[in-house]
């Protein structure tokens, strides 16, 4: 019996496949290695190779056409490749941050790096997913690894609470997602976005209510991963309790993958559902912007403040998602690139200031940092100013693009809320900067030197500044090639 195989386009798969293979190799390495250094180096190598393959894929897509594989179940289009770059950058930076951190914190177990790679692999699958089942599986691969990583510091209540809370609430959110997928399938009879959209648009479709309910549940499941209010409750605890490099990874890669999935669904399936879905999402975005920024105002710990700021930034990204299908996609990717650099950078500085158990991130500890460690203080200032959206830096351009996209899509009120809330955000970012430069030192800081973390900080500072000064370069690349995001 001959078996009609599916059309597999291997080139489209190379970046996640390289990560998967590296992870498998790294696990074998881990069998014979006590220390994680070698696995870390291997992981970095794998990430660089994946980035090269991604670059190759980008060239191919630019010249010819977008790649699909397995029918329309896996889409390697320009947005997916750009998201892959963001994920790879975030992962490389997280690995660099972890390199010395894990030894210092007595957490150096070689399985750490394979889990990070597998999580990134899942994120890439999620980004390129063209159907709901692939989306769900990518999401689960990504999340499962992150659940374990956030509980990495065993014996510490915060870390174990972070892992447990994230796992239980994450499982709950997955249940929503699965239920939503089931209802969408029940209404349309398809899993692939393009086919669902075709059925929804077709004549004689009479299951709009069922499909809309399914869409709402899918939205809830993905909003949880992106930490949009009111599904953000897990984020501050998980971000604070997890080891700092894991927090950086979570706040960037997980968010990028969730936003990518939302963009894809919002530009294919959701426009044909009842407009209620878009309105509900708009309310979520407004809530996120207000709650995230206001809660960040009242935090004493800087890590927790950054956690709430990450929630707030999910709101800005949500603004871009609302404009999906038009300029929103590019704005979201651009914003995520900037956000990845500045947010990971801020966490990297934090990991050099807090003690080996991630304690001591109170505001007082930053007093006089400008005099004691001028380099670190300057870097943190750049990140915080960029996160606040101060002009020459990347965060500013990102905010402009996002607000522009929201205005073009007609969400004027939301854009105004976003602008007002970014003014509020300036207060809590500047508070840290003020404490660093205008207060006398109160604490003896631990003498930590790590070339790997320093390298991550240098890269992120350079990226934040350069991206801010030359915004057109990356934006131009995003425009290249065919935008297949809708999966049509």
């Amino acid at each position, binding site marked *: 019996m001959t078996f009609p195989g599916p059309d597999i386009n291997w080139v489209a798969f190379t970046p996640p496949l390289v990560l998967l293979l590296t992870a498998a190799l790294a696990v074998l390495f881990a069998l014979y290695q006590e220390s994680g250094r070698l696995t870390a180096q291997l992981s970095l190598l794998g990430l660089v190779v994946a980035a090269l393959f991604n670059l190759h894929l980008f060239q191919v897509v630019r010249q010819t056409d977008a790649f699909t594989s397995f029918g329309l179940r896996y889409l390697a289009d320009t947005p997916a490749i750009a998201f892959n770059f963001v994920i790879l950058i975030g992962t490389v930076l997280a690995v660099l941050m972890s390199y010395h951190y894990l030894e210092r914190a007595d957490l150096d177990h070689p399985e750490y790096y394979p889990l990070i790679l597998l999580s990134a*692999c*899942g994120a890439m699958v999620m980004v390129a997913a063209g159907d709901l089942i692939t989306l769900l599986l990518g999401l689960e691969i990504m999340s*499962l690894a992150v659940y374990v990583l956030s509980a990495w510091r065993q014996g*510490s209540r915060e870390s174990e609470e972070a892992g447990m809370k994230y796992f239980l609430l994450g499982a709950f959110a997955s249940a929503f997602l699965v239920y939503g997928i089931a209802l969408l399938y029940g209404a349309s009879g398809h899993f692939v976005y393009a086919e669902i959209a075709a059925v929804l648009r077709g004549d004689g479709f009479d299951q709009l209510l*069922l499909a809309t309910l399914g869409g709402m549940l899918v939205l809830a499941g993905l909003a949880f991963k992106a930490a949009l209010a009111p599904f953000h409750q897990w984020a501050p605890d998980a971000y604070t309790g997890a080891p700092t490099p894991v927090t950086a990874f979570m706040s960037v890669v997980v968010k990028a993958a969730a936003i990518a999935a939302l963009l894809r669904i919002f530009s294919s399936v959701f426009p044909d559902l009842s407009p209620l879905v878009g309105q509900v999402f708009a309310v979520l975005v407004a809530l996120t912007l207000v709650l995230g920024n206001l809660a960040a105002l009242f935090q004493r710990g800087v890590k927790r403040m950054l956690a709430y700021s990450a929630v707030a930034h999910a709101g800005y990204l949500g603004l871009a998602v609302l404009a999906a299908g038009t300029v929103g996609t590019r704005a979201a990717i651009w914003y995520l690139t900037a956000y990845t650099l500045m947010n990971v950078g801020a966490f990297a500085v934090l990991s050099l200031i807090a003690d080996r158990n991630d304690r001591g991130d109170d505001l007082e500890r930053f007093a006089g940092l400008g005099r004691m460690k001028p380099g670190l203080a300057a870097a943190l200032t750049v990140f915080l100013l960029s996160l606040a959206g101060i002009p020459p830096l990347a965060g500013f351009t990102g905010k402009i693009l996002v607000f522009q996209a929201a205005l073009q899509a007609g969400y004027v009120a939301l854009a105004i809320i976003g602008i007002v809330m970014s003014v509020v955000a300036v207060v809590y970012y500047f508070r840290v900067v003020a404490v660093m430069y205008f207060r006398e030192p109160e604490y003896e800081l631990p003498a930590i030197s790590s070339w790997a973390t320093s390298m991550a900080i240098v890269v992120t500072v350079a990226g934040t500044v350069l991206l801010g000064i030359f915004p057109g370069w990356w934006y131009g690349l995003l425009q290249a090639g065919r935008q297949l995001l809708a999966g049509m």
Partner: protein
Amino acid sequence: MATFLILAVVMIVGAVGVITLKQPVHAALALVGTLLTLAVTYVTLEAHFLAAIQVIVYAGAIMVLFLFVIMLLNIQGETPPAVLAWFRPLAYIVAVVAAAAIATTAFMEPRSLPDEVQIATALQGGGVEPIADVLFSDFLLAFQLVGVLLLTGIIGAVSLVQRKVVAVQEARADGATKELEHA
């Protein structure tokens, strides 16, 4: 239709039992009831292979694991202290609203069933072959991804459990110093 209704009622009663019964063993047994009824439903739909898998994997292997965990941890049906008591009514309200929304959807847009011949042909041959056909063509990517998911789960579980002996002692020492700092 009558068979389905009876099965559905049993399934729902079992599902409600899982979340309301206080003793973990009772809840686990209620879950067995639900899973077995689901298997019977598969049989009525001619999906014999699926029914067998349902019994072997879910009602068999996974339930045994549940019972092992309950037995090893010696969990009694203790009521946890009421934290966030104000949350309870809110949770009930949300649950009722969600259930009402789903019920409305189900009854507002009833879909008429296709005629009997069509159903009979669609249900034929619920054996291994049709499942394998879609699993290795349409869902090949998903099939492979499940493998990656399982790999991730195994690595994660091993990495958390394997180091317990060393790590906990160190962590306790840490915890002691932390306590001192706080005092």
